[in-house]
Protein backbone atom coordinates (compact mmCIF):
# COMPACT_ATOMS: atom_id res chain seq x y z
CA UNK A 1 0.00 0.00 0.00
CA UNK A 2 1.27 3.48 -0.85
CA UNK A 3 0.95 6.49 1.41
CA UNK A 4 1.49 10.17 0.80
CA UNK A 5 3.24 12.04 3.62
CA UNK A 6 2.37 15.72 3.29
CA UNK A 7 4.92 17.80 5.18
CA UNK A 8 3.69 21.13 6.50
CA UNK A 9 5.89 23.87 7.94
CA UNK A 10 5.88 27.58 8.69
CA UNK A 11 7.76 28.76 5.59
CA UNK A 12 8.61 32.17 7.06
CA UNK A 13 10.27 30.51 10.04
CA UNK A 14 12.00 28.13 7.60
CA UNK A 15 13.34 31.01 5.50
CA UNK A 16 14.84 32.61 8.63
CA UNK A 17 17.00 29.55 9.48
CA UNK A 18 20.75 30.22 8.98
CA UNK A 19 22.31 28.22 6.09
CA UNK A 20 24.50 25.99 8.31
CA UNK A 21 21.50 24.92 10.40
CA UNK A 22 19.47 24.37 7.24
CA UNK A 23 22.24 22.18 5.83
CA UNK A 24 22.15 20.08 9.03
CA UNK A 25 18.37 19.71 8.77
CA UNK A 26 18.73 18.62 5.15
CA UNK A 27 21.33 16.01 6.21
CA UNK A 28 18.66 14.58 8.52
CA UNK A 29 16.13 14.52 5.68
CA UNK A 30 18.63 12.81 3.41
CA UNK A 31 19.42 10.17 6.06
CA UNK A 32 15.66 9.59 6.39
CA UNK A 33 15.36 9.04 2.64
CA UNK A 34 18.27 6.59 2.71
CA UNK A 35 16.63 4.65 5.52
CA UNK A 36 13.39 4.48 3.52
CA UNK A 37 15.33 3.23 0.48
CA UNK A 38 17.18 0.58 2.47
CA UNK A 39 13.90 -0.72 3.88
CA UNK A 40 12.33 -0.81 0.42
CA UNK A 41 9.77 1.79 1.52
CA UNK A 42 10.87 4.72 -0.63
CA UNK A 43 8.88 5.69 -3.73
CA UNK A 44 9.55 9.39 -4.29
CA UNK A 45 10.01 12.73 -2.61
CA UNK A 46 9.52 16.34 -3.67
CA UNK A 47 10.23 19.70 -2.08
CA UNK A 48 7.81 22.46 -3.05
CA UNK A 49 8.52 26.14 -3.75
CA UNK A 50 7.18 28.88 -1.50
CA UNK A 51 3.45 29.55 -1.48
CA UNK A 52 4.13 33.14 -2.61
CA UNK A 53 5.12 31.61 -5.97
CA UNK A 54 1.97 29.48 -6.10
CA UNK A 55 -1.23 30.13 -8.03
CA UNK A 56 -4.69 28.88 -7.24
CA UNK A 57 -7.19 28.52 -10.04
CA UNK A 58 -10.77 28.78 -8.90
CA UNK A 59 -14.15 28.80 -10.59
CA UNK A 60 -16.02 31.75 -9.20
CA UNK A 61 -19.82 31.62 -9.10
CA UNK A 62 -21.99 29.45 -11.30
CA UNK A 63 -23.28 25.98 -10.57
CA UNK A 64 -22.05 22.51 -11.35
CA UNK A 65 -24.26 20.51 -13.72
CA UNK A 66 -23.95 17.09 -15.18
CA UNK A 67 -24.46 17.46 -18.92
CA UNK A 68 -24.54 14.16 -20.81
CA UNK A 69 -22.27 12.58 -18.22
CA UNK A 70 -19.79 15.46 -18.10
CA UNK A 71 -19.47 17.87 -15.19
CA UNK A 72 -19.85 21.43 -16.42
CA UNK A 73 -19.96 24.70 -14.51
CA UNK A 74 -22.59 27.00 -15.90
CA UNK A 75 -22.49 30.72 -15.23
CA UNK A 76 -19.15 30.81 -13.44
CA UNK A 77 -15.83 32.48 -14.32
CA UNK A 78 -12.39 30.95 -13.88
CA UNK A 79 -10.17 33.18 -11.75
CA UNK A 80 -6.53 32.84 -10.83
CA UNK A 81 -5.22 33.99 -7.46
CA UNK A 82 -1.72 34.39 -6.09
CA UNK A 83 -0.70 31.91 -3.44
CA UNK A 84 -2.79 29.16 -1.90
CA UNK A 85 -6.44 29.91 -1.26
CA UNK A 86 -6.38 29.55 2.51
CA UNK A 87 -4.13 31.49 4.86
CA UNK A 88 -2.62 29.03 7.34
CA UNK A 89 0.11 29.07 9.95
CA UNK A 90 1.82 26.14 8.26
CA UNK A 91 2.07 25.53 4.54
CA UNK A 92 2.31 22.34 2.52
CA UNK A 93 6.00 22.36 1.63
CA UNK A 94 7.16 18.87 0.75
CA UNK A 95 6.12 15.28 0.30
CA UNK A 96 7.22 11.70 0.46
CA UNK A 97 5.45 8.81 -1.22
CA UNK A 98 6.21 5.63 0.69
CA UNK A 99 5.34 1.96 0.35
CA UNK A 100 4.44 0.11 3.53
CA UNK A 101 2.10 -2.45 5.00
CA UNK A 102 -0.61 -0.33 6.61
CA UNK A 103 -1.47 3.03 8.15
CA UNK A 104 0.18 2.14 11.48
CA UNK A 105 3.45 1.49 9.65
CA UNK A 106 3.04 4.72 7.66
CA UNK A 107 2.59 6.69 10.90
CA UNK A 108 5.70 5.02 12.30
CA UNK A 109 7.69 6.11 9.25
CA UNK A 110 6.27 9.65 9.45
CA UNK A 111 7.36 9.88 13.10
CA UNK A 112 10.95 9.21 11.98
CA UNK A 113 10.87 12.10 9.50
CA UNK A 114 12.90 15.04 10.88
CA UNK A 115 10.12 17.35 9.59
CA UNK A 116 7.80 15.89 12.26
CA UNK A 117 9.80 18.01 14.76
CA UNK A 118 8.81 21.33 13.18
CA UNK A 119 5.45 20.85 11.50
CA UNK A 120 2.46 18.55 11.06
CA UNK A 121 2.59 15.63 8.64
CA UNK A 122 -0.65 14.55 7.02
CA UNK A 123 -0.65 10.89 6.01
CA UNK A 124 -3.03 9.82 3.25
CA UNK A 125 -3.49 6.44 1.61
CA UNK A 126 -2.93 6.60 -2.16
CA UNK A 127 -5.71 4.66 -3.84
CA UNK A 128 -4.47 4.97 -7.42
CA UNK A 129 -1.43 6.33 -9.25
CA UNK A 130 -0.58 6.85 -12.91
CA UNK A 131 2.86 8.08 -13.91
CA UNK A 132 4.58 9.14 -17.11
CA UNK A 133 6.44 6.22 -18.67
CA UNK A 134 10.17 6.18 -17.97
CA UNK A 135 12.19 7.11 -21.05
Amino acid at each position, binding site marked *: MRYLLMLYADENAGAAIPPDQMA*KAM*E*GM*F*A*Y*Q*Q*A*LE*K*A*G*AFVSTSALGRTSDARTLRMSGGEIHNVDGAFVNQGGTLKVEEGPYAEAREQFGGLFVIECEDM*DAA*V*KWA*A*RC*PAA*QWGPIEIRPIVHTSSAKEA
Partner: protein
Amino acid sequence: MSDTAQRAAERAARESYGRLLAFLAARTRDVAGAEDALAEAFASALASWPEQGVPANPDAWLLTVARRRQTDAYRRVGTSRAGEMHLTLMREELDDLAMTPEAIPDRRLALMFACAHPDIDPSLRSPLILQTILGLTAADIGAAFLIPAATMGQRLVRAKSRIAELGIAFEIPDTEDLPSRLDAVLEAIYAAYAKGWNDLVGEAGGQLAEEAIWLGRLVVALLPSSPEAKGMLALMLYSHARRAARRSPTGAYVPLDEQDTALWDMEAIEAAETILRAASSAGPTGRCQLEAAIQSAHVVRRLTGADNWPIVVKLYDILHAMTGSPVVLLNRAAALAETEGPTAALASIAPLADDKRMADYQPYWAVRGRLLAEIGNREAAHEALTLAMGLSTDPAIRNWLEARRADLLAG
Protein backbone atom coordinates in the same frame (compact mmCIF):
# COMPACT_ATOMS: atom_id res chain seq x y z
CA MET B 1 -17.80 19.54 44.53
CA SER B 2 -15.93 19.14 47.80
CA ASP B 3 -12.25 18.33 47.68
CA THR B 4 -12.72 15.43 50.08
CA ALA B 5 -15.19 13.71 47.76
CA GLN B 6 -12.99 14.42 44.75
CA ARG B 7 -9.94 13.00 46.51
CA ALA B 8 -11.78 9.93 47.78
CA ALA B 9 -13.05 9.18 44.27
CA GLU B 10 -9.59 9.69 42.78
CA ARG B 11 -8.00 7.47 45.40
CA ALA B 12 -10.58 4.79 44.73
CA ALA B 13 -10.00 5.19 41.00
CA ARG B 14 -6.23 4.82 41.30
CA GLU B 15 -6.07 2.03 43.85
CA SER B 16 -9.25 0.13 43.21
CA TYR B 17 -10.20 0.62 39.58
CA GLY B 18 -8.55 -2.53 38.27
CA ARG B 19 -9.47 -4.56 41.34
CA LEU B 20 -13.17 -3.66 41.01
CA LEU B 21 -13.17 -4.09 37.24
CA ALA B 22 -11.54 -7.51 37.42
CA PHE B 23 -14.04 -8.58 40.05
CA LEU B 24 -17.03 -7.30 38.05
CA ALA B 25 -15.86 -8.80 34.76
CA ALA B 26 -14.69 -12.15 36.12
CA ARG B 27 -18.06 -13.93 36.03
CA THR B 28 -19.60 -12.30 32.96
CA ARG B 29 -16.34 -12.05 30.94
CA ASP B 30 -17.91 -8.86 29.65
CA VAL B 31 -15.09 -6.36 30.18
CA ALA B 32 -16.79 -3.53 28.28
CA GLY B 33 -20.02 -3.98 30.25
CA ALA B 34 -18.09 -3.99 33.53
CA GLU B 35 -16.26 -0.82 32.48
CA ASP B 36 -19.56 0.93 31.74
CA ALA B 37 -21.03 -0.15 35.06
CA LEU B 38 -17.95 0.97 36.97
CA ALA B 39 -17.84 4.31 35.13
CA GLU B 40 -21.46 4.93 36.17
CA ALA B 41 -20.62 3.99 39.74
CA PHE B 42 -17.76 6.51 39.83
CA ALA B 43 -20.08 9.16 38.35
CA SER B 44 -22.67 8.41 41.07
CA ALA B 45 -19.95 8.65 43.71
CA LEU B 46 -18.89 12.07 42.51
CA ALA B 47 -22.53 13.18 42.54
CA SER B 48 -23.57 11.84 45.93
CA TRP B 49 -20.47 11.76 48.15
CA PRO B 50 -20.16 15.54 48.45
CA GLU B 51 -23.76 15.64 49.80
CA GLN B 52 -23.90 12.47 51.86
CA GLY B 53 -20.26 12.15 52.78
CA VAL B 54 -17.70 9.57 51.73
CA PRO B 55 -18.90 6.10 52.77
CA ALA B 56 -16.87 4.17 55.31
CA ASN B 57 -16.05 1.59 52.69
CA PRO B 58 -15.79 3.35 49.30
CA ASP B 59 -14.83 0.17 47.43
CA ALA B 60 -17.84 -1.79 48.61
CA TRP B 61 -20.08 1.21 47.83
CA LEU B 62 -18.72 1.48 44.28
CA LEU B 63 -18.95 -2.24 43.78
CA THR B 64 -22.59 -2.38 44.91
CA VAL B 65 -23.62 0.49 42.62
CA ALA B 66 -21.67 -0.97 39.69
CA ARG B 67 -23.19 -4.41 40.27
CA ARG B 68 -26.68 -2.89 40.25
CA ARG B 69 -25.94 -1.15 36.94
CA GLN B 70 -24.62 -4.41 35.52
CA THR B 71 -27.76 -6.25 36.67
CA ASP B 72 -30.00 -3.56 35.11
CA ALA B 73 -28.10 -3.83 31.84
CA TYR B 74 -28.66 -7.59 31.68
CA ARG B 75 -32.32 -7.16 32.63
CA ARG B 76 -32.74 -4.80 29.66
CA VAL B 77 -31.18 -7.24 27.19
CA GLY B 78 -33.69 -9.90 28.20
CA THR B 79 -32.31 -12.99 26.43
CA SER B 80 -32.28 -16.31 28.26
CA ARG B 81 -28.52 -16.19 28.73
CA ALA B 82 -28.89 -12.63 29.99
CA GLY B 83 -31.66 -13.84 32.31
CA GLU B 84 -29.36 -16.45 33.77
CA MET B 85 -26.61 -13.87 34.16
CA HIS B 86 -29.14 -11.54 35.78
CA LEU B 87 -29.96 -14.09 38.48
CA THR B 88 -26.30 -14.77 39.17
CA LEU B 89 -25.57 -11.08 39.43
CA MET B 90 -28.54 -10.48 41.74
CA ARG B 91 -27.32 -13.18 44.06
CA GLU B 92 -23.82 -11.69 43.99
CA GLU B 93 -25.23 -8.26 44.66
CA LEU B 94 -26.67 -9.54 47.90
CA ASP B 95 -23.32 -11.07 48.78
CA ASP B 96 -21.62 -7.75 48.05
CA LEU B 97 -23.72 -6.00 50.65
CA ALA B 98 -22.01 -8.02 53.34
CA MET B 99 -18.57 -7.50 51.89
CA THR B 100 -15.63 -5.72 53.48
CA PRO B 101 -12.84 -4.34 51.25
CA GLU B 102 -10.43 -7.02 52.45
CA ALA B 103 -12.93 -9.62 51.31
CA ILE B 104 -13.18 -8.37 47.72
CA PRO B 105 -11.15 -11.06 45.94
CA ASP B 106 -8.32 -9.63 43.85
CA ARG B 107 -8.81 -10.98 40.34
CA ARG B 108 -6.54 -8.49 38.61
CA LEU B 109 -3.94 -11.13 37.81
CA ALA B 110 -6.61 -13.30 36.16
CA LEU B 111 -7.77 -10.25 34.20
CA MET B 112 -4.20 -9.64 33.03
CA PHE B 113 -3.93 -13.24 31.87
CA ALA B 114 -7.16 -12.80 29.90
CA CYS B 115 -5.81 -9.57 28.31
CA ALA B 116 -2.54 -11.30 27.32
CA HIS B 117 -4.28 -14.49 26.14
CA PRO B 118 -2.78 -16.18 23.04
CA ASP B 119 -6.00 -15.39 21.11
CA ILE B 120 -5.58 -11.65 21.69
CA ASP B 121 -3.54 -9.69 19.13
CA PRO B 122 -0.07 -9.22 20.71
CA SER B 123 -0.04 -5.50 19.83
CA LEU B 124 -3.23 -4.99 21.87
CA ARG B 125 -2.26 -6.87 25.02
CA SER B 126 -0.34 -3.99 26.48
CA PRO B 127 -3.06 -1.39 25.70
CA LEU B 128 -5.74 -3.72 27.14
CA ILE B 129 -3.87 -4.14 30.43
CA LEU B 130 -3.26 -0.40 30.69
CA GLN B 131 -6.96 0.25 30.22
CA THR B 132 -8.49 -2.48 32.36
CA ILE B 133 -6.07 -2.52 35.29
CA LEU B 134 -5.16 1.17 35.45
CA GLY B 135 -8.21 2.74 33.83
CA LEU B 136 -6.12 4.72 31.32
CA THR B 137 -8.14 6.26 28.49
CA ALA B 138 -7.89 5.19 24.86
CA ALA B 139 -6.54 8.70 24.15
CA ASP B 140 -3.65 8.35 26.63
CA ILE B 141 -2.82 4.84 25.47
CA GLY B 142 -3.09 5.82 21.80
CA ALA B 143 -0.73 8.76 22.34
CA ALA B 144 1.94 6.44 23.69
CA PHE B 145 1.52 3.92 20.87
CA LEU B 146 1.21 6.52 18.06
CA ILE B 147 -2.37 5.45 17.30
CA PRO B 148 -5.20 8.00 17.07
CA ALA B 149 -7.51 7.95 20.11
CA ALA B 150 -10.61 6.86 18.16
CA THR B 151 -8.74 4.04 16.39
CA MET B 152 -7.23 2.81 19.66
CA GLY B 153 -10.70 2.97 21.22
CA GLN B 154 -12.20 0.83 18.44
CA ARG B 155 -9.39 -1.72 18.66
CA LEU B 156 -9.82 -2.02 22.42
CA VAL B 157 -13.58 -2.48 22.02
CA ARG B 158 -12.98 -5.26 19.47
CA ALA B 159 -10.42 -6.95 21.70
CA LYS B 160 -12.88 -6.91 24.61
CA SER B 161 -15.61 -8.40 22.42
CA ARG B 162 -13.16 -11.10 21.48
CA ILE B 163 -12.59 -11.97 25.15
CA ALA B 164 -16.36 -12.32 25.56
CA GLU B 165 -16.99 -14.19 22.28
CA LEU B 166 -14.21 -16.71 22.80
CA GLY B 167 -15.20 -17.13 26.41
CA ILE B 168 -11.64 -16.50 27.54
CA ALA B 169 -11.55 -17.49 31.18
CA PHE B 170 -10.45 -15.09 33.90
CA GLU B 171 -8.16 -17.47 35.66
CA ILE B 172 -4.56 -18.07 36.59
CA PRO B 173 -3.23 -20.79 34.27
CA ASP B 174 -2.15 -24.18 35.56
CA THR B 175 1.42 -24.64 36.72
CA GLU B 176 2.22 -26.29 33.40
CA ASP B 177 1.07 -23.35 31.25
CA LEU B 178 1.96 -20.67 33.74
CA PRO B 179 5.51 -19.80 32.59
CA SER B 180 4.62 -19.22 28.93
CA ARG B 181 1.35 -17.42 29.72
CA LEU B 182 3.13 -15.27 32.29
CA ASP B 183 5.76 -14.38 29.69
CA ALA B 184 2.99 -12.83 27.58
CA VAL B 185 1.76 -10.76 30.55
CA LEU B 186 5.29 -9.61 31.41
CA GLU B 187 6.00 -8.82 27.77
CA ALA B 188 2.87 -6.67 27.57
CA ILE B 189 3.86 -4.75 30.69
CA TYR B 190 7.40 -4.34 29.43
CA ALA B 191 6.08 -3.05 26.09
CA ALA B 192 4.29 -0.28 28.01
CA TYR B 193 7.50 0.45 29.90
CA ALA B 194 9.58 0.53 26.71
CA LYS B 195 7.13 2.98 25.12
CA GLY B 196 7.56 5.21 28.13
CA TRP B 197 11.32 4.70 28.21
CA ASN B 198 11.88 5.53 24.55
CA ASP B 199 9.79 8.67 24.84
CA LEU B 200 11.05 9.53 28.27
CA VAL B 201 11.82 13.06 27.18
CA GLY B 202 8.09 13.67 26.89
CA GLU B 203 5.86 14.03 29.95
CA ALA B 204 3.44 11.31 28.80
CA GLY B 205 6.27 8.83 28.23
CA GLY B 206 7.64 9.26 31.75
CA GLN B 207 4.20 8.67 33.20
CA LEU B 208 3.69 5.51 31.16
CA ALA B 209 7.02 4.11 32.39
CA GLU B 210 5.87 4.68 35.98
CA GLU B 211 2.51 3.05 35.30
CA ALA B 212 4.35 0.01 33.90
CA ILE B 213 6.51 -0.21 37.03
CA TRP B 214 3.34 -0.01 39.12
CA LEU B 215 1.94 -2.95 37.12
CA GLY B 216 5.22 -4.82 37.60
CA ARG B 217 4.95 -4.38 41.38
CA LEU B 218 1.35 -5.56 41.21
CA VAL B 219 2.28 -8.78 39.41
CA VAL B 220 5.06 -9.43 41.92
CA ALA B 221 2.62 -8.86 44.79
CA LEU B 222 -0.03 -11.12 43.25
CA LEU B 223 2.39 -13.85 42.15
CA PRO B 224 5.12 -13.74 44.80
CA SER B 225 6.45 -17.17 43.84
CA SER B 226 7.41 -16.11 40.29
CA PRO B 227 11.12 -15.30 39.82
CA GLU B 228 10.47 -13.95 36.31
CA ALA B 229 7.96 -11.36 37.54
CA LYS B 230 10.62 -10.15 39.98
CA GLY B 231 13.23 -10.23 37.22
CA MET B 232 11.13 -7.96 35.06
CA LEU B 233 10.39 -5.53 37.86
CA ALA B 234 14.14 -5.34 38.61
CA LEU B 235 14.87 -4.80 34.91
CA MET B 236 12.47 -1.85 34.74
CA LEU B 237 13.83 -0.35 37.97
CA TYR B 238 17.46 -0.49 36.74
CA SER B 239 16.49 1.41 33.60
CA HIS B 240 14.29 3.83 35.45
CA ALA B 241 17.07 4.60 37.94
CA ARG B 242 19.11 6.11 35.08
CA ARG B 243 16.35 8.31 33.64
CA ALA B 244 17.81 11.63 34.86
CA ALA B 245 21.26 10.85 33.44
CA ARG B 246 20.12 10.00 29.91
CA ARG B 247 20.07 13.62 28.73
CA SER B 248 22.53 16.48 29.24
CA PRO B 249 21.21 19.78 30.64
CA THR B 250 20.83 20.95 27.02
CA GLY B 251 18.83 17.85 26.10
CA ALA B 252 21.61 15.93 24.30
CA TYR B 253 21.65 12.12 24.44
CA VAL B 254 24.17 10.63 26.90
CA PRO B 255 25.09 6.94 26.41
CA LEU B 256 25.31 4.65 29.45
CA ASP B 257 29.08 4.66 29.72
CA GLU B 258 29.25 8.47 29.72
CA GLN B 259 26.41 9.06 32.17
CA ASP B 260 27.03 10.98 35.40
CA THR B 261 26.33 8.26 37.96
CA ALA B 262 25.65 10.93 40.60
CA LEU B 263 22.38 11.47 38.71
CA TRP B 264 21.36 7.84 39.09
CA ASP B 265 18.53 7.03 41.50
CA MET B 266 20.41 4.87 44.00
CA GLU B 267 17.26 3.99 45.91
CA ALA B 268 15.74 2.46 42.76
CA ILE B 269 19.00 0.61 42.03
CA GLU B 270 19.12 -0.84 45.54
CA ALA B 271 15.48 -1.90 45.23
CA ALA B 272 16.30 -3.58 41.91
CA GLU B 273 19.29 -5.39 43.43
CA THR B 274 17.20 -6.70 46.32
CA ILE B 275 14.40 -7.88 44.02
CA LEU B 276 16.87 -9.54 41.65
CA ARG B 277 18.58 -11.37 44.52
CA ALA B 278 15.20 -12.61 45.72
CA ALA B 279 14.41 -13.79 42.17
CA SER B 280 17.73 -15.60 41.71
CA SER B 281 17.41 -17.54 44.93
CA ALA B 282 13.85 -18.59 44.10
CA GLY B 283 14.25 -20.82 41.09
CA PRO B 284 15.29 -21.34 37.48
CA THR B 285 16.74 -18.33 35.72
CA GLY B 286 14.54 -16.91 32.98
CA ARG B 287 14.93 -14.26 30.36
CA CYS B 288 13.91 -11.25 32.45
CA GLN B 289 16.27 -12.20 35.27
CA LEU B 290 19.16 -12.52 32.82
CA GLU B 291 18.41 -9.12 31.34
CA ALA B 292 18.18 -7.64 34.82
CA ALA B 293 21.49 -9.29 35.75
CA ILE B 294 23.09 -7.62 32.72
CA GLN B 295 21.77 -4.24 33.90
CA SER B 296 23.15 -5.00 37.36
CA ALA B 297 26.58 -5.67 35.82
CA HIS B 298 26.48 -2.33 33.97
CA VAL B 299 25.67 -0.55 37.24
CA VAL B 300 28.54 -2.29 39.08
CA ARG B 301 30.98 -1.46 36.29
CA ARG B 302 30.10 2.21 36.26
CA LEU B 303 30.09 2.54 40.05
CA THR B 304 33.26 0.55 40.83
CA GLY B 305 35.22 0.74 37.58
CA ALA B 306 35.48 -3.05 37.55
CA ASP B 307 35.91 -4.48 34.05
CA ASN B 308 33.06 -6.97 34.02
CA TRP B 309 32.44 -7.09 30.26
CA PRO B 310 33.32 -10.84 30.16
CA ILE B 311 30.43 -11.49 32.60
CA VAL B 312 28.09 -9.41 30.44
CA VAL B 313 29.07 -11.39 27.32
CA LYS B 314 28.54 -14.64 29.25
CA LEU B 315 25.06 -13.54 30.32
CA TYR B 316 24.22 -12.63 26.72
CA ASP B 317 25.48 -16.07 25.62
CA ILE B 318 22.97 -17.77 27.93
CA LEU B 319 20.22 -15.37 26.90
CA HIS B 320 20.89 -15.97 23.22
CA ALA B 321 20.92 -19.76 23.66
CA MET B 322 17.55 -19.39 25.40
CA THR B 323 15.83 -17.01 22.95
CA GLY B 324 17.73 -17.04 19.65
CA SER B 325 16.67 -13.41 19.41
CA PRO B 326 18.48 -11.15 16.91
CA VAL B 327 18.10 -8.27 19.37
CA VAL B 328 20.05 -10.26 21.97
CA LEU B 329 22.73 -11.10 19.39
CA LEU B 330 23.05 -7.40 18.63
CA ASN B 331 23.41 -6.35 22.27
CA ARG B 332 25.87 -9.17 22.78
CA ALA B 333 27.97 -7.77 19.92
CA ALA B 334 28.25 -4.41 21.68
CA ALA B 335 29.59 -6.21 24.76
CA LEU B 336 31.81 -8.51 22.70
CA ALA B 337 33.49 -5.45 21.17
CA GLU B 338 34.77 -4.64 24.67
CA THR B 339 36.24 -8.10 25.31
CA GLU B 340 37.36 -9.34 21.90
CA GLY B 341 37.37 -6.19 19.82
CA PRO B 342 35.24 -4.80 16.98
CA THR B 343 36.27 -7.35 14.34
CA ALA B 344 35.01 -10.30 16.39
CA ALA B 345 31.89 -8.31 17.29
CA LEU B 346 31.15 -7.58 13.62
CA ALA B 347 31.66 -11.22 12.71
CA SER B 348 29.17 -12.21 15.42
CA ILE B 349 26.39 -10.14 13.83
CA ALA B 350 27.19 -11.20 10.24
CA PRO B 351 24.19 -13.62 10.25
CA LEU B 352 21.88 -10.62 10.84
CA ALA B 353 22.85 -9.03 7.51
CA ASP B 354 20.35 -11.29 5.72
CA ASP B 355 17.60 -10.78 8.29
CA LYS B 356 14.95 -8.61 6.62
CA ARG B 357 13.71 -7.37 9.99
CA MET B 358 17.00 -5.52 10.46
CA ALA B 359 16.38 -3.24 7.45
CA ASP B 360 14.36 -0.80 9.55
CA TYR B 361 15.70 -1.74 12.99
CA GLN B 362 17.55 1.34 14.19
CA PRO B 363 19.75 -0.31 16.87
CA TYR B 364 21.19 -2.71 14.27
CA TRP B 365 22.56 0.14 12.16
CA ALA B 366 23.72 2.12 15.19
CA VAL B 367 25.74 -0.81 16.60
CA ARG B 368 27.04 -1.79 13.16
CA GLY B 369 28.07 1.79 12.42
CA ARG B 370 29.97 2.05 15.69
CA LEU B 371 31.82 -1.24 15.11
CA LEU B 372 32.67 -0.39 11.49
CA ALA B 373 34.02 2.98 12.64
CA GLU B 374 36.20 1.22 15.21
CA ILE B 375 37.82 -1.00 12.59
CA GLY B 376 38.37 2.04 10.37
CA ASN B 377 35.94 1.13 7.58
CA ARG B 378 34.81 4.72 7.16
CA GLU B 379 32.66 4.31 4.10
CA ALA B 380 30.56 1.45 5.44
CA ALA B 381 30.42 3.11 8.88
CA HIS B 382 29.15 6.31 7.26
CA GLU B 383 26.37 4.41 5.50
CA ALA B 384 25.32 2.50 8.64
CA LEU B 385 25.31 5.62 10.82
CA THR B 386 23.28 7.48 8.16
CA LEU B 387 20.68 4.69 8.16
CA ALA B 388 20.59 4.72 11.98
CA MET B 389 19.99 8.49 11.85
CA GLY B 390 17.23 8.06 9.30
CA LEU B 391 15.49 5.46 11.46
CA SER B 392 15.61 7.54 14.67
CA THR B 393 12.41 9.07 15.97
CA ASP B 394 14.16 10.92 18.79
CA PRO B 395 16.04 14.02 17.54
CA ALA B 396 18.53 13.77 20.45
CA ILE B 397 19.60 10.32 19.23
CA ARG B 398 19.69 11.54 15.63
CA ASN B 399 22.01 14.41 16.63
CA TRP B 400 24.28 12.10 18.58
CA LEU B 401 24.59 9.73 15.62
CA GLU B 402 25.31 12.63 13.31
CA ALA B 403 28.13 13.72 15.63
CA ARG B 404 29.57 10.17 15.53
CA ARG B 405 29.37 10.33 11.74
CA ALA B 406 31.21 13.68 11.77
CA ASP B 407 33.92 12.05 13.97
CA LEU B 408 34.57 9.62 11.11
CA LEU B 409 35.59 12.43 8.80
CA ALA B 410 37.60 14.18 11.49
CA GLY B 411 39.38 11.00 12.73
